[in-house]
């Protein structure tokens, strides 16, 4: 894992001191809110419905145990004893007081963390595959590149006042677990003729105008990465639609100009920039890569795992659902579900954070990940240790066996916290999870991703959910639109709307209708929801959801 060098430490400490002075000047009246707002946003501090919210960056979703312990301490000392892990692999505190925020940032700096560029029109926290460095299907660990991008983009003088926010995601595997096609820039590490480079995807994004990203180059040599990304952001910075906030993201620029024109402009800018990159960036990258050396994996019998798997059905169910193949067959990738039925998706109490940190320290090479699906990952666990880990997780409400199932719902904070939201997300997620737990159907249903957003900004990724739910305000009442057929992976697709939305009291029933329709029409137990949808299209689901309309059409 990356450890701050002297420059990083001094930079972050200096920023905390600056922000402390800015907060002081805001409180004593020297700064107005208009003057203060851009300063607080640069440091991740929002003002939401009920309180301030501090969004802390977890670069590429990677944490060590000490950092997770510190997040727990901050939650206990300055917040309400919990934190909310987000779809951008960050953590949000929902209840800080303005006076306390500089101390919270100081505590983050103590463990090499910060909240810089988690808001505002800047390059945001770079996200990555949450199985990086552990997955069996990986070309290379994407995190060294993600860390290089963090260093390059942090306080980059040209990119502090962009037309809008800018998000980059990186993966090192063909299977896309980082939603790279729905980012402003998506990077996939690829190999060609024995050399590593990148497939570069540009202009993806969700929100008001969802777009799947387009390939701007299918192979960019590794050494060209920074000048090429600088060229992309620079071209957009110049021609992006600053006149209209809703058309300012690069997806609109790419859409309006076409990928071919954008490629030509980027190539021209790249030709100007490339000579300025003397190779220092590659030296820095090599230094970063050394810090991401794989942990020493122990070789030992996996008999304790096999015994527990054979004897304990609860353990077996959890192992079948929450484990993923590690590149080393004696090891496993563990996903800890933050989606207990009826709980808030992505929330962890300070106590749960400490439990996970301790497990990582003892059994997981001191490493944790936050997934964009709002769960926690222990990436390198020896299988012999799994029964013990499972037992500890059970004691702390962390052993829910539902990864990838219908109750493993992504949900944004929605109108329970967010000032931008148009409806609530959390209660809808809670009710759906509770309902399908009562029905005892979720293992029968299998792979099904529900994603819920409380407004069109789509923090809950609803466009790429197999079932997407969007909360809206319809004449002063919460109303929920459904989309079907979205896909966040390497076969990315945007969902299509079923038809008119549903009031809050009907949305769980509507989801149940969709799922029952799937169970009725799937060709076999092996055919997943998304496969069935692709085979049948919208018609059977629409007929089931809107029977009166269908009957009226038949009668006409």
């Amino acid at each position, binding site marked *: 894992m990356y450890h701050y060098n002297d420059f990083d430490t001094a930079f972050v400490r200096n920023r905390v001191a600056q922000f402390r002075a800015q907060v002081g000047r805001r409180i004593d009246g020297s700064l107005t809110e208009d003057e203060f707002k851009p300063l607080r946003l640069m440091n991740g501090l929002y*003002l939401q*419905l*009920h309180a301030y919210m501090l969004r802390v960056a977890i670069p590429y979703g990677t944490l060590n145990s000490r950092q997770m312990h510190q997040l727990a301490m901050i939650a206990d000392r300055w917040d309400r004893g919990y934190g909310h892990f987000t779809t951008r692999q960050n953590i949000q505190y929902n209840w800080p007081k303005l006076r306390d925020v500089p101390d919270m940032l100081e505590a983050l700096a103590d463990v090499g963390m910060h909240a810089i560029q988690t808001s505002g029109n800047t390059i945001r926290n770079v996200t990555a595959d949450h199985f990086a460095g552990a997955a069996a299907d990986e070309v290379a660990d994407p995190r060294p590149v993600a860390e290089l991008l963090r260093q390059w983009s942090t306080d980059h003088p040209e990119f502090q006042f962009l037309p809008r926010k800018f998000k980059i995601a990186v993966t090192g595997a063909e299977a896309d677990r980082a939603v790279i096609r729905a980012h402003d820039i998506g990077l996939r590490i690829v190999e060609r003729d024995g050399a590593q480079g990148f497939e570069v995807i540009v202009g993806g994004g969700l929100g008001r105008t969802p777009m799947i990203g387009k390939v701007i180059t299918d192979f960019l040599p590794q050494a060209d990465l920074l000048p090429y990304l600088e060229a992309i952001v620079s071209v957009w910075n110049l021609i992006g639609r600053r006149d209209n906030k809703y058309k300012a993201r690069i997806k609109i620029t790419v859409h309006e100009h076409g990928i071919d024109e954008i490629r030509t402009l980027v190539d021209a800018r790249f030709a100007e920039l490339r000579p300025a990159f003397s190779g220092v960036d590659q030296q820095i990258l090599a230094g970063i890569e050394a810090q991401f050396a794989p942990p020493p994996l122990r070789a030992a019998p996996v008999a304790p795992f096999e015994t527990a798997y054979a004897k304990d059905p609860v353990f077996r169910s959890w192992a079948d659902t929450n484990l993923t193949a590690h590149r080393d067959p004696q090891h496993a990738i563990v996903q800890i579900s933050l989606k207990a039925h009826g709980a808030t998706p992505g929330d962890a109490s300070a106590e749960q954070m400490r439990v996970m940190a301790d497990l990582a320290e003892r059994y997981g090479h001191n490493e944790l990940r936050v997934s964009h699906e709002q769960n926690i990952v222990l990436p390198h666990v020896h299988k012999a240790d799994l029964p013990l880990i499972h037992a500890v997780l059970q004691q702390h409400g962390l052993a829910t066996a539902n990864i990838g199932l219908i109750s493993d719902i992504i949900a944004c904070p929605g109108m*329970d916290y967010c000032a931008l939201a148009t409806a609530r997300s959390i209660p809808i997620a809670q009710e759906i999870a509770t309902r399908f737990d009562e029905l005892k159907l979720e293992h029968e249903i299998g792979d099904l991703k529900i994603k819920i957003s409380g407004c069109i900004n789509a923090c809950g990724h609803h466009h790429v959910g197999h079932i997407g739910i969007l909360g809206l305000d319809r004449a002063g009442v919460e109303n929920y639109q459904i989309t079907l057929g979205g896909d966040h992976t390497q076969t990315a697709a945007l969902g299509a709307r079923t038809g008119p939305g549903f009031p809050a009291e009907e949305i769980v029933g509507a989801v149940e209708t969709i799922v029952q329709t799937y169970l009725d029409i799937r060709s076999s137990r092996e055919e997943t929801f998304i496969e069935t949808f692709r085979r049948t299209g919208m018609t059977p689901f629409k007929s089931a959801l809107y029977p009166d309309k269908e009957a009226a059409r038949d009668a006409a």
Partner: protein
Amino acid sequence: MSREFTPKVVTANDLIEGDAIWLTEDDGWTRDIAQAELIEDEAHGQLRLLHALSQHSVAVGAYLAEAQLGEWGPQPVHFREIFRTRGPSNHAHGKQESA
């Protein structure tokens, strides 16, 4: 024809705590909407909003929100404003804690 003016309250977030506050008749701020000034005249509403926006050291992001007279005083109309009077639905935090 312009729409008929409907009653309003001036609301904002507290600078330090960040929670919802409402403007009172005597130029103070309250954490209980029922204590707020119910504004029934459009021009008066604009003056009260201007006053609130000048309160830099107390209130952030002041705006006029729909309200109606209830048994104990002004009440919110829209669900967003109702949530602001109590807190989130997943934890008993916010104003509902002390209610």
